């Protein structure tokens, strides 16, 4: 057991820091720090810089253009990116579809789609959830009927994050209506520019419009866009869901978030002293920090333990639950720390640039972030589903 980073690892950290210092636009980082919505160009520009450096796909094998880093390197990279307020890498192509194609895709599919993910030629989104299905993925109703060399797709997907930017969507569709539940489902790649595809934004309670509904009305999809076998899409889906997801615990984001809380607390005055010195507030922050220190180690332990290609199902469920609890607690602390300055909607009142009035607290739209991040425990497999998976795993023998 050795909790110190090796010299190689420390060198790697320096390399990452150097890259971030050179390549990350400070104005973009500031927008990330303040929790503002980024434009499509913001994301694409950052992806391109990472890709140029060979760092866009840390967990892909080298043969497909990935960095093939081990767990510790990925951890270091994510931590440094989060602390520098780099934009989050959009995960749909890189962390979700990429591994599925590498595992289940044909050589032709791999050769065609994987480079386009890296180059940014395709922006992928995810067509899993459906209205009325919620956490119950297997009850999906979008259908794909074979018609010659095409599937004809009809149905509706929802909660499609950043779907407004995407030109491609990977979908779970029902290809055999007589089969029950998880059978008869296929994994299909669909061009969003096809006739019959319609995208409508869903405005969330914080005012953001990141998620969408997607309709398919008689959309034709070439059969070569089927990944894996017909009616065996659930295998891909399960792989994707339980596959080692990079940074599921969000340690880097929590670390950056906690730094933000501390910064706000240092600048807020309470009873003539900085809020950071208030014992009640300091206690909450300290407890979150202690939990986060432990979770960072839990995350590293689990990720290290999982041999390449192995799916740490139940452990990733644990990390998901604990990770969201901590992130949401940190969002709550930021909201509290900002005091009355958490109240303004959006950042208009805090911008300071368009008036002579002061911007007394370096708060950013902390309340909006608090509300927006309620999604963390709902989307991507709700925490209830994760607890169910954990509990289920305890029933088996050999535990």
């Amino acid at each position: 057991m050795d909790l110190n980073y090796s010299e190689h690892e420390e060198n790697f950290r320096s390399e990452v820091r150097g890259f971030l210092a050179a390549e990350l636009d400070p104005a973009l980082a500031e927008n990330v720090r303040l929790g503002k919505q980024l434009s499509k160009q913001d994301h694409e520009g950052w992806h391109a810089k990472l890709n140029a450096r060979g760092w866009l796909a840390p967990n892909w094998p080298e043969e497909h253009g990935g960095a093939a880093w081990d767990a510790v390197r990925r951890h270091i990279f994510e931590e440094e990116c989060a602390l520098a307020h780099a934009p989050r890498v959009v995960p749909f192509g890189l962390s979700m579809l990429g591994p599925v194609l590498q595992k289940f895709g044909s050589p032709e599919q791999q050769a065609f789609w994987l480079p386009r993910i890296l180059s940014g030629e395709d922006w992928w989104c995810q067509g899993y959830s459906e209205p009325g299905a919620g956490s119950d993925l297997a009850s999906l109703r979008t259908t794909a009927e074979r018609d010659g060399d095409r599937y004809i797709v009809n149905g509706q997907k929802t909660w499609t994050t950043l779907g407004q930017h995407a030109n491609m969507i990977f979908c779970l569709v029902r290809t055999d209506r007589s089969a029950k539940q998880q059978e008869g489902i296929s994994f299909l790649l669909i061009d969003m520019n096809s006739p019959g595809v319609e995208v409508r934004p869903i405005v969330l309670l914080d005012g953001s419009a990141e998620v969408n509904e997607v309709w398919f009305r008689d959309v034709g999809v070439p059969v070569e866009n089927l990944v894996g076998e017909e009616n065996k899409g659930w295998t891909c889906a399960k792989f994707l869901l339980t596959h080692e997801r990079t940074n599921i615990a969000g340690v880097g984001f929590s670390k950056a978030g906690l730094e933000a809380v501390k910064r706000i607390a240092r600048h807020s005055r309470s009873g003539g002293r900085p809020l950071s010195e208030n014992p009640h507030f300091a206690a909450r922050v300290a407890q979150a920090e202690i939990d986060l220190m432990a979770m960072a180690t839990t995350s590293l332990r689990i990720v290290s333990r999982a041999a390449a290609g192995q799916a740490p199902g139940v452990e990733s469920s644990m990390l998901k639950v604990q990770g969201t609890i901590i992130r949401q607690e940190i969002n709550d602390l930021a909201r509290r720390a900002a005091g009355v300055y958490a109240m303004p909607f959006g950042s208009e009142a805090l911008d300071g640039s368009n008036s002579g009035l002061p911007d007394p607290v370096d708060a950013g739209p902390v309340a909006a972030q608090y509300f927006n991040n309620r999604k963390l425990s709902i989307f991507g497999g709700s925490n209830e589903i994760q607890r169910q998976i954990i509990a289920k795993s305890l029933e088996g023998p050999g535990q």
Partner: protein
Amino acid sequence: MNFDLSQERVMLQDSLRRFLRDRHSPQMQNAAQYPPGYDAGLWSGLAELGVFAALFSEKDGGFGGLGADIAVVFEELGRAGVTAPVTETCILGGGLLSRLGDSNQKELITGIMEGSCQIALAHAEPDGRYDLSFVSARAVPQSDGIVLNGQKSVVVNAQAADFLIISAREDGAADASEGISLFLVPSGADGIVMRDFALVGGGRAAEISIENLLVSEAARLGPAGAAFPVLEEVTAAAITATCAATLGAMISAADLTRDYLATRKQFGRPIGSFQALAHRMADMMIALEQARSAVILAAGHLEASRDVRELHASAAKNLIGRTGRLIAEESIQMHGGIGMTAEYGLGHLARQIVMADHRFGDTDHHLERFIALTAA
């Protein structure tokens, strides 16, 4: 000891609930993001119904004005998710005018009750956080009147208000409770610069810069430098109002959640039949009873001596802060994605519940205050 509402208050409750059911709609919530920050038709409807008069005592021409009246009115407003500056205009503005105003100043109360006059209290400051005695804005007498200078933070209802009540210090250190005066000033006066914005919890507020604002002696509300005890009194009433409104929103959020659990199906059965959710729903109901009791205690002690009043106000604000967060977060979580959408009513209620924690001192502030009051 008894917990029953009087006949009159039951009638007020019934008529207000019916009125809001008919007249209020979620669409109005969105309107509250834009100036003036509330629905003007609803406002005059509330006035016609006598809701504002119920918040004033008979000596002011009203027919209520006690803690129990506040609790009844605001719980209903909160249940319906109403965004309207009733606390600012009636409780804070009206409360200060009633307690401190001379006969001229008091004339505004009639306008308030009729719905034709709006007020905002410009008191909190950038460095004051939730400390009620923190006032660094200065009031300096000179030959032709008094000159005010200072900054005021997140002044709710500032843009729509006809009058501002501005706190400024005539004496003492920035956090001394002595030396604070209040001034009643038309909101359009020279020397008042506002930057207004929408609030996450609904309605609008402004950052206010007061720059060499010249007022007459007659603008002073009450005696010089002695405003703090009255500010504390009306703030206790505002806390009670906020707690009652939040309780109302919590009730509605719990109702929505209960209905959702009963009707929404997943894995072939209503999700409310899943025991993990059922038990959490039970915990929400228990929290709701606690919240209800806390509001009753705050309202029932609003006319008590300072110590007793403040103790119960702080206890209520702390308890509502904790149970409110629980109910808002659990309601969203148990709804799943739909609970996150702006379109569905829950999000609006959740914003009102959680953002109420940022008014008149948050959960922690009032815990500290409770500790100080019980240690004394």
